[in-house]
């Protein structure tokens, strides 16, 4: 008994030592920054800071648990998790909460869960698991494409039905990045891109009017300055007026006087950039870049294909979040409702990010684990 206990403690200590402190410290710094920005936006009646703090704590515990579980277990658990999220997506269709003209959320008591957010990770896990055993020279064969394409199409269709074009495209993008990493023949990508281009005009006719409007206003936001283009115009004004050193903490007139809509969720980067300027934005970008770089490093340490693909997938996932969010708030991309990881106020996004980082850390702790 004693020796067994001792073994468990020793084992735990080893695990604690091999936790990735680099990622953890970045995570904590970013969380702190997000709390600082949120407190500058908090008008007192919403308790944004407290709620966000609780979510950070909760997600951090989830992170630790996920990190301590063997990567092999996660490997075995992948399909099940994927199936579970698919089930949630179907449930959303029936029991989902309606907001902003779409059914996206499930009420699970503590907070409203957005299964499409979880799917961003689930699809990475499922694909990584599938490619664990596909041999390099057999990857391009049609029979080896059927399952991964199904794995992508099912959630894509479910999410687009909500309707949530942004998230659906996001899932597609992340999934394609995995296919790319596996070494899929370039010809298949070319073929895929071409067929998408042909399908695109067709699919536009299936878009909801508000989605069409968003694309139109993206192309020319000034065409409708009080309506759909308002977000982007105000966001650009906020970021631009920040200048090099920013307007100062709590001095962001655009975000503090409500000219900027939703400054605590999708537009939190704007609120940050207005207050801390280009100087702050560069530091923040650098922190995110470090995080992505670190995940890439861990990916290369990983012995198993599953671990590698999973980490690369998560790193790309993070990149996509940041790139699309900042691209969107600076007017480079249309407003598609993609949050910025860790910083944006939102339960599921926070949970998904921490869960994903947990998986990466697990892959690091068990980097030498082979998966049979």
């Amino acid at each position, binding site marked *: 008994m004693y020796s067994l206990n001792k073994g468990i403690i020793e084992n735990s200590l080893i695990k604690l030592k091999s936790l990735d402190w680099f990622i953890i410290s970045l995570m904590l710094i970013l969380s702190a920054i997000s709390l600082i920005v949120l407190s500058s936006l908090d008008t007192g009646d919403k308790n944004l800071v407290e709620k966000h703090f609780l979510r950070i704590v909760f997600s951090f515990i989830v992170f630790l648990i996920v990190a301590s579980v063997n990567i092999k277990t996660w490997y075995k658990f992948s399909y099940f998790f994927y199936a579970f999220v698919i089930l949630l997506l179907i449930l959303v269709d029936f029991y989902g909460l309606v907001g902003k003209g779409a059914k996206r959320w499930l009420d699970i008591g503590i907070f409203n869960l957005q299964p499409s957010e979880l799917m961003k990770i689930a699809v990475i896990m499922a694909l990584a698991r599938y490619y664990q055993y596909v041999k390099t020279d057999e990857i391009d064969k049609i029979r080896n494409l059927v399952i991964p394409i199904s794995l992508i199409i099912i959630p894509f269709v479910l999410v687009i039905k909500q309707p949530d074009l942004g998230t659906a495209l996001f899932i597609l993008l992340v999934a394609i990045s995995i296919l790319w990493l596996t070494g899929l023949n370039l010809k298949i990508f070319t073929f895929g891109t071409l067929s998408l281009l042909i399908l695109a005009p067709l699919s536009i006719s299936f878009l909801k009017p508000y989605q069409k409007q968003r694309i139109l206003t993206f192309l020319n936001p000034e065409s409708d300055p009080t309506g759909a283009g308002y977000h982007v115009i105000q966001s650009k004004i906020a970021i631009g007026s920040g200048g090099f050193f920013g307007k100062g903490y709590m001095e962001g007139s655009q975000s503090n006087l409500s000219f900027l809509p939703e400054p605590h969720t999708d537009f939190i980067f704007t609120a940050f950039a207005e207050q801390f300027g280009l100087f702050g934005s560069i530091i923040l970008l650098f922190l995110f870049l470090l995080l992505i770089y670190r995940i890439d490093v861990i990916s290369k340490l990983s012995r198993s294909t599953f671990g590698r693909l999973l980490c690369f997938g998560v790193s*790309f996932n993070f990149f996509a979040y940041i790139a699309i969010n900042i691209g969107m708030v*600076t007017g480079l991309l249309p407003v598609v409702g993609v949050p910025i990881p860790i910083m944006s106020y939102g339960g599921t996004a926070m949970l998904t990010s921490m869960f994903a980082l947990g998986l990466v850390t697990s892959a690091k702790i068990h980097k*030498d684990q082979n998966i049979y």
Partner: protein
Amino acid sequence: MEYFSPKVRKGIESKSKTISRRGFVLSIAKAGFFGIILSRLVYLQLFKSKEFKQLSDRNRYREIKEVPERGTIYDFKQRVIASNNQVYQLSIFPKEIKNLNEFFYSLRNYINFDVLEINKFKKEIYRHKKTKKYQAYIIDKKLSWKTIAKINYNLSDIPHVQPLVSYERTYSFPEEFSHIIGYVAEPNKKELKKISQDLLYVPNLKIGKNGIEKRFENKIIGSPGKSVIEIDAYGKQLKQVSFNEGIKGNNFYSTLDSDLQVYAKKVLGNDSGSVIVMSTKGEIRCCVSSPSFDANLFTYGISNFEFKKYLKNEKKPLSNKSLSSLYPPGSTLKMLVAISALENNIVNKNFKIRCTESTEYFGQKYHCWKEKGHGVVNMKKAIKESCDIYFYEVARLLGVDRLYETALRFGLGKYVLENFIEEKKGVFPNTKWKKKYVGQPWYLGETIIAGIGQGYIQTTPIQLCKMIAQIANGGYQIKPSFNSNNQFLLGEKIIQNDEHLKLIQESLNVATNEWRGTSYRSRLKSGLKYCGKTGTSQVRKITQEQRDLNIKNKDLPWKFRDHSLFTGYGPVSNPEYAISVIIDHGGSGSSKAAPISKKIMQKVFELYYQKEKNV
């Protein structure tokens, strides 16, 4: 390695290599995209930052300019002619308002609007939004102090509004002074381009459109108050950031006398014409044009109906006849012809001529106004009885170019005032002028009729008044003005020989105060005396046929009747005030203009010489 598996499946090694290789390509793509984001941030936050800062301030701050109080205009006894009323109004900020219906609905808790009014304002606001998006719009409704206080108290609950105190120009004598004081109204596009920077975007700004209001605009207008208020996205006021009180424009102390002005207007009655009285140093005491209009109507936008009524009136109430109507001076030019001839030594005072009814030059007949002629006339008699034949001959001897030189020195054909937009220059012709503007050589016949102030000569009433004032003051040039801050000093002497001056002054005296003088019937019988010269200027050519039929002036349609003129000064013994009266189509000078002058000169003596009646 303890986890090392001996059974490495084929392809695993190469697989991880593939992943790393492709991962590297992906990293390059990521770095590329981060580069794009970074440059976008640099673009927005460094290069465009100034522009966006402006936009952000425009979101955040509401800048309100307040109409400055215009300077008060006084007459020379410091009585108010033009002042300002305080009005309470509400300015609203159209760029902040998303739903006008809701806005007016909520505003109805404080102000009583009827549906028609709301529709009118809504229409105007839509128009306002197109052109002046960032400016406040003033609701054109005068509010009570109580309403304003109520709104002020609840200001944090009423978005998009700002109460303001504004000033409305009012005129104490809206009809009497309307031409010379002018009126104020909203600036048009052309005027907005010229307006000074700080007056730009002042809501409801009214600027001087003509008269003294326009001429001295820069001094009178003042500078606007400005406050900056911080608001949030819902248009609610948070705090006042800065406040500069407006500065009232400088008061304008005019030389005008409201007693005299009001009296002159009354005397003119329904006649179309003008009266000008100035001191012989150039202080303009009275400058009336008749008929007149109500200047107060223009302050807040005259109705189309009223405006058209003014425009259609054949007596032209909107034009300032004193400064802008042009008349041939007629016989009032005769003393100038005499001065020119005497000064140029063409004739001396004993030059005599025999006046029969008419005379002939180059086969053309020239008539005297008196049917049987004046008999033998010398210069004094010629002026006194206004003999035309005498001045035909003098003009012939003098020549138009010499007459022109003299007229120019007396200010004919030149602006009397500085920068008065409505003033006209008139014409005093000479041979060169005719060649240039008419394109024909000068005919001697034209010189002859120039001797009695007909032909191409066009003068304004104020020019004639200045001319006679310069004869009255001893032959010195003056600079007439409405601004009592000017120094009214006598200028260059333009009648060199005092004997000539004496002769002319004496001739004018007998023209009024001696039997057979043209204005003898209009003389002042007791007390101070005045004197002057009548004039009757034709607006049509009298044909021989008409002369034979002996058509009377009053039988003609109004438009073809002669203008009636009188220029004079008083008191005779020590001339201090000059007068010119012109009645459009009023008939002969002695029948219409002279009696009016008599009344006004009497008033002048009453007003300024009360204590020393026996001078």
